[in-house]
């Protein structure tokens, strides 16, 4: 591993800016997010429409690019309803609690290396902390309060259930998400975002730690409550979930904005932690000048947009999954896989360190440990898998028996039922069985 | 500088302690106890800063873990009691069904 | 050089108790016979030992045996006897077989003449094994030369007695048993503090009595420790004002247990005063003499006066005992050879006299089912033998010359009167006041005798049977001893006197002139 370039910011470079530079950077970041939201909403609608063979918004401005602005204005001009029964203070605070942390989470995102901003040498990142990643996670968690409080203060069953569901989902996926970062820290040895980016100079963690990346991608959807995991809103089931009572005014706009910023944050983290941050992708990175000055912002934004496109793409392609499926995936797959993976990474790292003499220790012991982890994890999985398998088979047999019964006695329970094995029921294949869960 | 944090921690602790003594709802009492534990954490972290070593922060970690375990046990106990006490009404028993 | 006499003497009753406890269920007669046999063996052994005593090796304590028991605490299983301890052990050994015989039917369930159940049937085996355990402990408590061991026996003795009173006693037995236990326990615990203090302050790392003598020099410390021991002994001995448990306990206990309680157990208190309070804390003992003598005199007079007013025979005897214990305490603290020798002798004689009185009263009560004096009358005519024994025992209680109590009471009074230990007239005054009690004693004893034995024969009394052989065997030895020692107390005094002398040497009181007079008695 060659050492990072002098242009790469380290933790020591932060906290030195004069106040006015800080304010400028903060305003720039704020503006970036606000504009990003306006464009992002439009972009998403447009993209998804194209995928569905529609035009999408095309009235306001060129390509409908002002559509979001128009929506925002419309919301501002609608009547602001506050139902009588709500807990007023919390009801009004909830949107604020949702939005502010979402913005703050973005503050540790590195956009580029050290640049010259109005004559001051400063990293292109609002701030960095020794615990930057934790900060992001914390802010994500704080905005859950907004969701829960919104549901709680509304004093209506739908809102309450929606809020709880949302909270349960977010916290469930937060565990898997938190675990998926551990492998990165194992390699980077730091929680600071700028240093993690620096550590990806040679290889992106997305390549090096594919399982972690994949798990993160899944949890990203869960955390941001995007389709296929947008159960908190799930209009069909919960009439809008926790935001039921926030009919359609600026409060509603704030909530939507908060969720959007979450999506942005999720993409930003993906880029920063897994996709090399502001560093140029492989062929371009051979050019020395690609990673200095203001240019890296471009790489960052390109990667950012691509990840966002992926999110939209998934939305266009996949249906919303069931709540129990969602939770099962999070708890029964992502978490254990993650733990085993972390240990494996640590074992491999260990072997490497012992081999190059950094650690004292027996290389065979370390390697043996790795083998144990792999075999242990596999064995446990086999065990659980057979459990799942048996359950599925039992269910299948049950359904089959039921069908058998029905076919023998068409008048099941006294109701005249047409024979179930009519050809037009099952098509050509008589034996088709509804698939099990998962 | 750290004095302010200590005062805050003392206040939180006292609020928690008073809450435990005067509130009647088990859940609220329980929350007050958690508040006390968090006040302890604050004190520990502040002192860690003041004396300049990491021990206080490590303690804070462990306290969080213990507090979490306590939450789990405590909620289990309190919930059991609530179910028992409200079982007089069928509606209630139904609502609290796990 | 350790002698096995005393350990064997204690082991025999314990083994006997275990054997009795393990006998098959229902073999009640066998249990009684085994108990009697064991107690007789103990008596025989004791007598053999007693006759060897003058020639046995040892300075003050003879038949010494010392084993480490709890080295961590400096506690030894240390036993050995001087003259006083020997006569008290002998007293216990004599009384136990008598008590076994006397309480032959106590646990069987007693029915009064009119058929009402006085005491329901109890476990016979338990009673007699408790009795044997108690005997072992009585021997142990007198033989202990280790302060801690003494304390252990002192406290542990309570438990068998507690169960004997509580399980086999009269109608109020549980109240009486609890009262007895708590009083004694409280005193014992105070003594425990003093025992600990003694150990800590002496700093000898041992509890052996000879090594602790003179170990405490500081007068203030001596006073505190003395107080701890003395309160315990005062409760045990019952001295006014902590005597109130005795009438209850004695009245409710079965006659046999009452004999042991008053005859032996309470002696532990006075014995302890003589042995431990005086010798370990001589300065404190001298400092406290006046108040203690005052208490003793109050006890003497108070016990006698209250006895007069009693309607219950057993309570009456208990109060007479309180009066007598006053004499003993007075003798102990008079600090003269004669008085202390008299006190020691009194302990033995009182055991015989009160024992006989309790047993005779017990036989009466067993016939009538009532302890009230008013329920009797004219017994003399119906059961002359019983009445005769009763009369002799009663006269021994009032210290008639020629009976054993007289000698000791006289010695105590003379000794106290002429004690020049402190060169004051206070002791003489005390002796004179206490002499009043002799008159009072005549009143309460003779009044009781008159009301119960003489006069017109009450209707239920007419059905009384006179003493059977067993009962005669119970009372005859006691009366024999009373009369025997009344005329010839020398054997007892011969062993007691050297022990008293060494006590007084340890207390650093010398009045040889009085000692000579005492020897000449």
């Amino acid at each position, binding site marked *: 591993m060659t050492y990072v370039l002098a242009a790469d910011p380290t933790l020591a470079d932060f906290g030195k800016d004069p106040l006015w530079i800080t304010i400028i950077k903060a305003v720039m970041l704020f503006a970036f997010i606000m504009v990003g939201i306006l464009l992002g909403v439009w972009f998403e609608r447009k993209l998804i429409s194209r995928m569905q063979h529609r035009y999408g918004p095309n009235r306001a401005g060129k390509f409908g690019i002002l559509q979001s602005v128009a929506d925002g204005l419309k919301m501002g001009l609608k009547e602001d309803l506050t139902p009588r029964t709500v807990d007023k203070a919390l009801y009004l605070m909830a949107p604020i609690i949702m939005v502010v942390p979402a913005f703050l989470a973005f503050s540790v995102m590195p956009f580029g290396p050290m640049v010259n901003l109005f004559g001051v040498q400063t990293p292109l990142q609002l701030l960095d902390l020794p615990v930057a990643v934790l900060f992001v996670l914390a802010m994500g968690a704080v905005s859950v309060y907004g969701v829960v409080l919104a549901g709680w203060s509304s004093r209506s069953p739908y809102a309450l259930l929606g809020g709880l569901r949302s909270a349960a989902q977010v916290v469930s996926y937060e565990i898997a998400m938190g675990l998926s970062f551990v492998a990165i820290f194992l390699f980077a040895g730091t929680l600071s975002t700028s240093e993690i980016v620096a550590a990806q100079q040679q290889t992106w963690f997305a390549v090096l730690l594919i399982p972690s990346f994949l798990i993160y991608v899944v949890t990203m959807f869960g955390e941001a409550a995007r389709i296929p995991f947008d159960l908190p809103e799930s209009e069909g089931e919960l009439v809008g979930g926790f935001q039921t009572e926030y009919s359609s005014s600026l409060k509603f706009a704030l909530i939507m904005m908060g969720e959007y910023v979450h999506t942005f944050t999720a993409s930003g983290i993906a880029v920063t932690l897994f996709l090399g941050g502001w560093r140029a992708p492989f062929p371009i990175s051979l050019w020395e000048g690609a990673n200095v000055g203001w240019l890296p912002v471009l790489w960052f934004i390109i990667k950012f947009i691509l990840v966002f496109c992926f999110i939209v793409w998934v939305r266009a392609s996949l249906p919303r999954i069931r709540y129990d499926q969602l939770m099962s995936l999070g708890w029964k797959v992502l978490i254990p896989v993650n733990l085993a993976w972390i240990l494996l990474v640590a074992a491999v790292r260990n072997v490497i360190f012992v081999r190059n003499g950094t650690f004292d220790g027996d290389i065979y012991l370390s390697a043996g440990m790795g083998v144990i982890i792999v075999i242990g994890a596999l064995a446990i999985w086999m065990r659980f898998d057979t459990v799942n398998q048996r359950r599925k088979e039992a269910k299948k047999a049950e359904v089959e028996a039921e069908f058998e019964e029905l076919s023998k006695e068409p008048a099941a329970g006294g109701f005249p039922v047409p024979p179930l094995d009519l050809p037009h029921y099952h098509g050509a294949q008589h034996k088709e069985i509804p698939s099990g869960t998962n | 500088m750290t004095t302010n944090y200590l005062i805050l921690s003392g206040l939180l*602790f006292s609020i928690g*302690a008073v809450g*435990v003594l005067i509130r009647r709802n088990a859940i609220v*009492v329980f929350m007050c*106890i958690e508040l*006390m*534990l968090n*006040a302890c954490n604050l*004190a*520990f972290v502040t*002192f860690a800063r*003041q*004396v*300049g070593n990491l*021990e*206080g922060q490590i*303690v804070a970690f*462990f*306290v969080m873990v*213990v507090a979490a*375990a*306590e939450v789990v*046990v*405590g909620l*289990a*106990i309190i919930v*059991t*009691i609530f*179910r*028992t006490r409200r*079982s007089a009404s069928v509606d209630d028993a139904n609502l609290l069904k796990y | 050089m350790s002698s096995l006499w005393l350990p064997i003497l204690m082991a025999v009753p314990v083994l006997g108790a275990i054997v009795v406890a393990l006998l098959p269920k229902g073999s009640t007669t066998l249990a009684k016979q085994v108990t009697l046999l064991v107690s007789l063996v103990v008596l025989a052994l004791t007598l053999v030992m007693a006759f060897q005593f003058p020639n046995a090796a040892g300075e003050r304590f003879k038949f010494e045996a010392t084993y480490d*028991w*709890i080295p*961590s*605490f400096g506690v030894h299983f240390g036993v050995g006897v001087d003259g006083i301890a020997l006569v008290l052990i002998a007293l216990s050994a004599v009384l136990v077989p008598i008590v076994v015989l006397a309480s032959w039917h106590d646990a069987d369930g007693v029915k009064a003449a009119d058929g009402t159940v006085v005491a329901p049937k109890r*476990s016979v085996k338990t009673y007699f094994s408790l009795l044997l355990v108690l005997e072992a402990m009585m021997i142990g408590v007198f033989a202990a030369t280790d302060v801690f061991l003494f*304390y*252990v026996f*002192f*406290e*542990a003795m*309570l438990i068998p007695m*507690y169960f004997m009173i*509580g*399980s086999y006693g009269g109608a109020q*037995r*549980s109240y009486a*048993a*609890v009262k007895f*236990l*708590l009083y004694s*326990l*409280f005193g014992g*615990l*105070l003594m*425990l*503090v003093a025992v*600990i203090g003694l*150990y*800590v302050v002496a700093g000898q790392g041992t509890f052996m009595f000879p090594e602790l003598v003179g170990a405490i020099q500081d007068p203030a410390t001596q006073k505190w420790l003395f107080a701890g021991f003395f309160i315990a002994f005062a409760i045990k001995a019952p001295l006014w004002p902590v005597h109130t448990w005795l009438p209850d306990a004695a009245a409710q206990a079965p006659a046999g247990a009452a004999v042991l309680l008053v005859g032996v157990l309470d002696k532990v208190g006075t014995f302890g005063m003589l042995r431990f309070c005086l010798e370990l804390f001589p300065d404190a003992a001298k400092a406290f003499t006046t108040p203690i003598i005052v208490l003793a005199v109050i006890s003497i007079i108070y016990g006698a006066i209250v006895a007069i007013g009693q309607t219950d025979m057993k309570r009456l005897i208990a109060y007479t005992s309180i009066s007598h214990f006053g004499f003993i305490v007075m003798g102990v603290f008079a600090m003269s050879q004669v008085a202390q020798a008299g006190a020691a002798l009194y302990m033995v004689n009182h055991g015989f006299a009160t024992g006989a009185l309790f047993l005779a009263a017990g036989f009466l009560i067993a016939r009538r089912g009532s302890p009230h004096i008013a329920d009797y009358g004219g017994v003399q005519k119906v059961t002359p033998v019983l009445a005769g024994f009763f009369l002799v025992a009663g006269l021994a209680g009032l210290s008639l010359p020629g009976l054993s109590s007289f000698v000791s009471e006289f010695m105590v009074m003379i000794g106290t009167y002429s004690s020049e230990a402190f060169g004051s007239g206070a002791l003489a005054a005390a002796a004179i006041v206490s002499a009043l009690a002799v008159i009072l004693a005549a009143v309460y004893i003779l009044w009781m005798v008159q009301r119960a034995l003489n006069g017109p024969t009450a209707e239920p009394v007419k059905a009384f049977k006179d003493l059977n052989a067993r009962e005669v065997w119970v009372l005859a030895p006691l009366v024999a001893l009373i009369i025997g020692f009344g005329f010839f107390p020398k054997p007892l005094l011969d062993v007691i006197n050297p022990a008293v002398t060494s006590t007084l040497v340890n207390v650093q009181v010398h009045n040889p002139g009085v000692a000579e007079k005492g020897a000449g008695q």
Partner: protein
Amino acid sequence: MNPTIEFPTIEYATLAPLLLVFGAAILGVLVEAFAPRYLRKSFQVPLTLLSLIGAFALVIVQVVRGDLPTGPVAMGALAIDGPTLFIWGVILVLSAVCVLLINDEGHFVASAASVPGSADEEGAERAGHEHTEVYPLALFAVGGMLMFPAANDLLTMFVGLEVMSLPLYLLCGLARRRRLLSQEASMKYFLLGAFSSAFFLYGAAMVYGYAGTVSFAGISQAMAQGALLDPLLLLGFSLLGVGLLFKIGAAPFQAWKPDVYQGAPTPITALMASGTLVAAVGALLRVFWVGLGNLDWNWRPVLWVVAALTMMVGAVIAITQTDIKRMLAYSSIAHAGFLLVGVLATYDTGAGNAVSLQAILFYLLVYGVATVGAFAIVTLVRDPGGEANHLSRWAGLGKRAPILSGVFAFFLLAFAGIPLTSGFFGKYALFTAAIGSGQEAGDSLGAWMTGLVVVGVIASAIAAFFYVRVIVLMFFNEPAADGPAIAVPSTGTVTVITLSLLVTVGVGVFPEPVLQLANTAASSLFIR
């Protein structure tokens, strides 16, 4: 950041007993997870017992080999020294014995989650379900008990405290009969316990603020150099004291004890009354002797008051009790007071302290054993609705079950401290140590120590009253016509009672070997 990280080591061999217990507990959880219901108990019972016995054997091995570590182990987290090993041995024996009681049928609820009196519960009962989770829970509690007194810093001690308490909170609520009572006990214990551990923790924070470290050695050192009247330190030690005194149930923090003892399933009560008390006293000693040893002129007067109050409160209130378990709870409070007398008995010299320590260790052993025996007997006296705990039900028991009542009476006499029972020597040793410490020249309490012993003696006399009352009730009262049934004891219960009786009698007559053992353990004192 500290550039030279000390490479951590863990002395697995020395910690083996602790690790074995925790390992077995974890295995127990796995058994719960994977074994079929009908097999669970047959896995759990041997697992639990073997692990406890094995841990005890490991302790013995360490004692026999004698090469105790001279410094703290596991990076200064734990101190395995003579007293620790003794306490470990005692806890392991007591808990193994308690497991035998737990093993008995009918103490634990069939389904804790079902509402009392519901069809759900009835169904679970009928199906013969049982919560075999009690075994791993008990093991975890025992593990915490081992950790608590062995802790060498406040953090480990806090963790040990909680590991010990949390399973006990749950176990308290699992009684099969009188479930409402049991659940209430559980909640009360939990809320008050958590409250007190918060105090402990805040105290730890204050002491940390004063000393800059949480390790006892460091605290002691800081005190040797720094000001002793620092408000942080004073506040810290009082709050630590509150937390620890709560655990041993000293007045005025004793309120939980009777309720919890009464409500909890009796085997759990036995475990709490013996094991928890032993562990908590061990921890108390470590905090006050090792950590705050230099402050003793300051905390001793405070503890003096607490000890006196505890003894008197325990003894006096016990008199009014009508429930046997409540009475034993108050008796336990009184005994906690006696133990505090020992804690107060500090000397200037190591040899003197060893005497006090020996006395405390000895007392812990004998009291714990007698307690377990007494509670084992309580489990046997039953009514149709469960245990017959009301004292009136015990009337005349001596006639129906003479041996049982005799043994129980014997345990009561041991509690009362009658000579020739183990309790007597325990009390004697403690009082001797206390008076001795007061006699030392320049002792901050001086004659007050003797005063405390006198208070203790008075409390003993009062306590004797209610012990004797029970004996009177059992032996001197007539049995009620519909008296309680005496359950046929299982082999386990018989073993427990026999063992306790033998120890109580044996130590009562010949205490020297145990005293020697305690002496050996105590002579090395606590390592720092």
